[in-house]
């Protein structure tokens, strides 16, 4: 009798505490349910449409987990860096460890700014800077395409605070880890947008690069320009490839120190690869290590997308600004390459300028594809790889500027 009563009472308690109850009885619950539906959309895009699944799938799953009411796997209040009185005192990692859920613990690697540089280490192991070394002018296109960041900053600055505008602008870098690095540093989760919002926009548009770029490229170039064939690149010696990452680290690190962690790790990975003497480390850095960190990064960044961070007009604005960022970056790159083509007397195909946004290697592929569309015997890929990898360095420098101003 008493047992049955207790049982019923307990079940009732469980029901009232359950997410199912929350879903149907509160506005927050309904918002969470909406967020979960949105996470399904991103899962669909990742799995069926192949939208950057390595990141978007874990992010979307983190989004699902964080929006299950009461699941307690992520606690945004631990990350504001404010005490009860609302004063800024810095994140209390001891509290995070005591009270945090699984995704809070994994998110530590984001807030400690560890994951993105380590992913850059792995990317460095897989990147060939040869085409850039062979044609260093490509750096200019990698710089121009950062217009995607800075022009977006102007637009975003009209609606958002400096830190938020920087986080949104960096989407234009078309570089996931850089965007997460900057936004996780600048955003405390107290405002309307958080790291997860930025990451969702960045990876979505990165997947959409093949749709966003071509119309812009065609609109800004003439048929004649698109048909320009470029000569073969010179062979780059192994020694140059070894000196390159060291020099870039030193030069960029000295010029803009806040870019050093990203650029430094990218270049360390590349040095590992080009040195040829530590293939054990190259293998692990680009496989096991990078994959582990990708998982941790994805689900914990996804966890920052609680309903109140996404179901608001700011999210729409971010998505709009994000597509603007990619478009402006593409346009900036193409326009500078048009100018360079003029100055060089018609030797540079302006299609390679769009590759400067990074989004390695997709953007370079699109340059190649658009070129081959005009003339199937036109091989632009290697020429586009130069601006493409230069864009990664350019974005990191731009990130450094934003961090040094607002960080």
């Amino acid at each position, binding site marked *: 009798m008493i047992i049955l009563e207790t049982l019923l009472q307990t079940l009732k308690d469980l029901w009232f505490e359950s997410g199912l109850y929350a879903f149907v009885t509160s506005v927050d619950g309904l918002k969470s349910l909406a967020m979960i539906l949105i996470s399904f959309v991103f899962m669909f895009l990742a799995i069926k449409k192949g939208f950057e699944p390595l990141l978007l799938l874990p992010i979307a799953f983190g989004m699902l987990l964080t929006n299950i009411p009461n699941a307690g796997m992520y606690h945004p209040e631990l990350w504001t860096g404010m005490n009860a009185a609302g004063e800024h005192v810095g994140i209390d990692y001891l509290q995070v460890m005591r009270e945090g859920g699984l995704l809070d613990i994994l998110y530590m690697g984001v807030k400690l700014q560890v994951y993105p540089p380590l992913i850059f280490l792995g990317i460095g192991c897989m990147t*060939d800077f040869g085409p850039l070394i062979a044609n260093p002018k490509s750096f200019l296109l990698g710089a121009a395409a950062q217009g995607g960041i800075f022009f977006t900053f102007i637009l975003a600055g009209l609606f958002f605070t400096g830190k938020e505008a920087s986080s949104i602008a960096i989407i234009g870098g078309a570089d996931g880890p850089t965007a997460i690095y900057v936004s996780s540093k600048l955003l405390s989760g107290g405002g309307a947008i958080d790291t997860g919002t930025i990451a969702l926009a960045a990876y979505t548009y990165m997947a959409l690069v093949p749709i966003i770029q071509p119309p812009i490229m065609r609109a800004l170039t003439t048929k004649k320009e698109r048909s320009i064939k470029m000569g073969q690149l010179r062979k780059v010696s192994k020694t140059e490839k070894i000196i390159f990452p060291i020099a870039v680290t030193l030069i960029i690190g000295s010029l803009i120190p806040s870019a050093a962690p990203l650029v430094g790790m990218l270049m360390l990975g590349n040095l590992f690869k080009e040195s040829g003497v530590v293939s054990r480390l190259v293998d692990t850095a680009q496989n096991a290590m990078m994959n582990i960190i990708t998982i941790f990064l994805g689900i914990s960044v996804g966890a920052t997308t609680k309903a109140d961070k996404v179901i608001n007009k700011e999210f729409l604005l971010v998505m709009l600004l994000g597509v603007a960022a990619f478009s402006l970056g593409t346009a900036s790159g193409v326009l500078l390459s048009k100018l360079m083509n003029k100055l060089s007397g018609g030797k540079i195909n302006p299609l390679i300028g769009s590759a400067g946004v990074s989004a390695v290697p997709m953007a370079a592929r699109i340059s190649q594809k658009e070129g081959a569309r005009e003339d199937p015997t036109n091989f632009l890929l290697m020429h586009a790889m130069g601006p493409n990898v230069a864009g990664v360095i350019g974005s990191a420098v731009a990130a450094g500027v934003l961090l040094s101003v607002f960080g």
Partner: protein
Amino acid sequence: MKTWMMLANAAPLFMSEMNGNEKIPFTGIIAVTLTGFAVVFLGLIILIAFVSLLGKFFESRSNKSKPDAPSAPKQEQKPAPKPAPKSPAADLNEEQAVVAAICAAISAMGDAEGTTYAVKSIRPRQASVRGARPAWYMAGLRDNTTPF
């Protein structure tokens, strides 16, 4: 029976009072047990309902599409024909492995011909790095560089 009665009076309270650091009364033990069973069965029965509905939905869809396009769904679902009933799991998995290996080989050839290029220049390289690394490697390669 007296003990029982005493427990009974305490019962509505004790579930919220239990901090777990002391022994719990027998009523509490039973209540936890029953609650546990109830929740486990409840949860899994909801799953049964969902999965059954899901299965029915897909079966009906699959039945509908069969007369129209008898070969298409076969490709979608794994094409493994199961000849003998003995150790179906092993057979199935070995077949899948073979299929995967063949797919990998075919896609590798496709790559070699350079019809769809782009980053292929990157990937073949990594293919050679990893050399023999298995079925999944070839397939996964393209996506791997993309997201970063």
